């Protein structure tokens, strides 16, 4: 019996050991084949050198109508293998075989790339001089696809190419200020390229594969380790043709006026979409060095100025909405005002004491009249209106590097600032903030967030990151209509009406001029002005808002400088968007009493 038991025990032990060993193998098998399978596959592929990057292309930036404003393309760098370039190679053309020497090949390459043949042969000879088995000599960089195809068609065995992505801007300087640019290592630096990088950026994927001796991938061996993600397409609200028109006009007008710069913006009133944000000078992202660095940015968002008289309608709107005034409020307006010590307000031109209505104050752009009425309102209440119009805070566009302007709290205003803020001095705004404020006035008092992009179109066609269009009421509809009605008089009877043909036949246009003084940085003001005209048409159904700003013109220094361009631009906008002419009668508020 004892022998039988010991026999059984031995057997059991043997089986147990076998089971343990089997279990260890199974665990190891699962570990290798399942748990760490991907990592090991990768390691193996890396050791064989068969890891390929699947490039995730950076998305395009397109205009509202689909015009491509920025896109990624492939460019090629050609490299020679000097070791093999020494000897002539055989090339068969139509069944006959020719010997092609390095010199012949270099001439063929140079004819295509526009280089000198020596520029092709020199790197090869230099590399050979250093090492007779040299494998690398760069020949030409950044050639486009058609050149690539021509070079490849030469069938030179020692010539090879690598590709890389680069960015092109088919419309050049059209909206170049808004689009932005990338640096040499493809990192976004400015503009929408930077602001919408999350939408545009593609993410590279990775795949591993095995190749046979003949260089052909072994069937079934390709494994996508990480799929690539293509960048989304950024759809902007811009109209490229109109943007070009604005830039072209600016390029004519600004040098004529001896001005430093100019800006033209167009915003659709109902949905607050920026259709044009032009500036001169404007950078061509394909060739940035052609433009001075200070104009590489989008001035509409990234420059702030004391707005001057174009700010007056905001004060007037606050006054009317708060019940402090009406379009026909009576004022006695001298040409200067010294209400208290240390305060001096004067109008642009000296004039006898006038009996102006609030409408007349806007038409004549009287600083004195606006100061008298504006300060009749509580400072905090006026400040509150300005804040609600968006003064002192960035617009909803949130452009990269956007400025918020400077609007101090009433508690820190000195006496002069208290008066100056009624007519747009003593505070700074970006042109974008003024566009948003005018959009509010034109849109029946409802401020819709200003937008520059429609959204990010993903590969599956869905639109993501669509900006909010939720409006907030700032002033009443009645106030809004009254302000627009009052501003109809500016083109008819204001200082700008001395220009011939400022009105646009068939359309009621509400506009306001501005001739702002800008600080010289030494506590005083510059001699030349920042002149503007902002306007809306048609008044009976406001559709488009046009803003023209000219920086420091020297041949004409008043708002007259911006007048003709405003008319040209507004006419083009109304024509391009096929806006119906006005049907309602003008408001005809009296300027005087």
């Amino acid at each position, binding site marked *: 019996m004892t022998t*039988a038991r010991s*026999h*059984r025990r031995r*057997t059991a032990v043997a089986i147990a050991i076998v089971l343990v060993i089997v279990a260890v193998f199974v665990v190891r098998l699962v570990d290798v084949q399942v748990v760490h399978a991907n990592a090991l596959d990768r390691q193996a592929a890396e050791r064989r050198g068969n890891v390929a990057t699947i490039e995730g292309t950076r998305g395009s930036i397109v205009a509202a109508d689909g015009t*491509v404003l920025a*896109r990624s*393309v*492939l460019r090629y760098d050609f490299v020679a293998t000097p070791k093999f370039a020494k000897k002539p190679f055989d*090339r068969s*053309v*139509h069944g006959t075989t020719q010997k092609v020497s390095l010199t012949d090949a270099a001439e*063929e390459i140079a*004819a295509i790339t526009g280089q000198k043949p020596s520029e092709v042969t020199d790197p090869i000879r230099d590399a050979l001089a250093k090492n007779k088995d040299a494998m690398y000599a760069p020949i030409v960089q950044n050639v*486009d*696809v*058609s050149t*690539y*195809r*021509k070079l*490849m*068609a030469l*069938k*030179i*065995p020692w*010539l*090879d190419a690598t590709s890389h992505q680069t960015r*092109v*801007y*088919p*419309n*050049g*300087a*059209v909206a170049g200020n808004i689009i932005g640019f990338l640096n040499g290592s493809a990192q976004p630096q400015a503009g929408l390229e930077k602001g919408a990088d999350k939408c545009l950026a593609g993410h590279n994927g990775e795949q591993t594969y095995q190749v046979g001796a*003949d*260089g*052909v*991938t*072994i*069937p079934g061996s390709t494994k996508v380790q990480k799929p690539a993600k293509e960048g989304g397409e950024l759809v902007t609200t811009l109209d*490229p*043709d109109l943007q*070009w*028109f604005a*830039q*072209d006009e600016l*390029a*004519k007008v600004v040098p004529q006026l001896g001005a430093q710069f100019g800006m033209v913006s167009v915003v659709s009133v109902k949905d607050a979409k920026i259709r044009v944000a032009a500036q001169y000078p*404007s950078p*061509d992202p*394909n*060739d940035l060095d*052609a*433009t001075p660095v200070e104009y590489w940015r989008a001035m509409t968002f990234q420059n702030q100025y004391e707005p001057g008289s174009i700010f007056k309608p905001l004060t007037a709107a606050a006054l009317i909405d708060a019940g402090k005034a009406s379009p026909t409020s009576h004022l006695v307006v001298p040409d200067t005002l010294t209400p208290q010590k240390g305060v001096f307000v004067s109008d642009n031109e000296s004039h006898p004491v006038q009996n102006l209505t609030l409408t007349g104050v806007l038409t004549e752009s009287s600083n004195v009249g606006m100061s008298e009425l504006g300060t009749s309102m509580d400072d905090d209440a006026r400040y509150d209106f300005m804040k609600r119009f968006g003064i002192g805070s960035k617009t909803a566009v949130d452009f990269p590097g956007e400025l918020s302007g400077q609007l101090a709290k009433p508690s820190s205003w000195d006496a002069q600032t208290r008066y100056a803020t009624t007519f747009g001095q003593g505070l700074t705004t970006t042109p974008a903030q003024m566009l948003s404020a005018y959009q509010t006035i034109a849109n029946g008092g409802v401020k819709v967030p200003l937008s520059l992009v429609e959204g990010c179109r993903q590969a599956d066609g869905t639109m993501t990151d669509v900006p909010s269009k939720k409006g907030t009421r700032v002033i009443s509809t009645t106030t809004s209509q009254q302000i627009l009605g009052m501003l109809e008089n500016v083109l008819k009877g204001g200082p700008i009406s001395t220009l011939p043909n400022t009105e646009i*036949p068939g359309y009621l246009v509400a506009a306001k001029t501005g001739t702002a003084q800008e600080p010289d940085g030494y506590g005083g003001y510059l001699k030349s002005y920042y002149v503007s005209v902002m306007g809306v048409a048609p008044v009976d159904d406001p559709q488009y808002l046009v803003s023209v700003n000219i920086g420091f013109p020297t041949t004409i220094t008043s708002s007259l400088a911006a007048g003709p361009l405003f008319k040209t631009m507004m*006419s*083009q906008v*109304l*024509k391009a968007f*096929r806006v119906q*002419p006005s049907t309602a009668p003008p408001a005809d508020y009296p300027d005087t009493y």
Partner: protein
Amino acid sequence: MSQATASVPWPGRNRPSDTTPHLEAVPRVSRHARPRLFYAAIAVLTVMVVVVTQLLLSIGVSQGAYRIESLQSRKGELARAYQAVSEDVDALSSPQNLAANAAALGMVNNGTPVYLRLSDGKIIGSPAPATAAAGSTGQLVGNALTQDIPLVTAPKTTKQARTPADQGAQASRGATGTEPAAGAAGGTDSGTPGANRQKTNDGPVPWTGALPAPSTH
């Protein structure tokens, strides 16, 4: 297993049987009962069929790999062709190029539009002819991509005779270019008819047909 081992009787414990052993003659083994050639042949044939099928299948699969390789390089070439022409189209359709060509053809922009109101037939605005001064040259807004494109009015230069290398250019080529894949040359390149030989022609294509009629709004 231990059970089986235990049940085998020990020789020492073998008790004499009570019954008489039953004896019988062993039948003669037939000489004809050995395996027939026929079955062996079937077995060998089956193995051979399996081997050959497998061989054919793997040839088929690797043939497919060459075809995939060839098609992929063709796809790459087509993608490059698409990129080249779409880049050209983008540059040609840029406002700068269109405006410059329009100006070169003598077109001017009329800055004073006049409207005819259909409801009462009223003419809004006063018609005035556009002047060349109001037009744009199209050259004021920079574009590094279009400045080398000749205007449609520019005199045509005769194309140089094509070099032998150009004529050798064929649409289907290896993905990396220098050497067409060895296998692809072996006849699987059937997706590339001779008609796909590329024509190298740079620059804008002049418009030859009649001008399209404008759509009136």
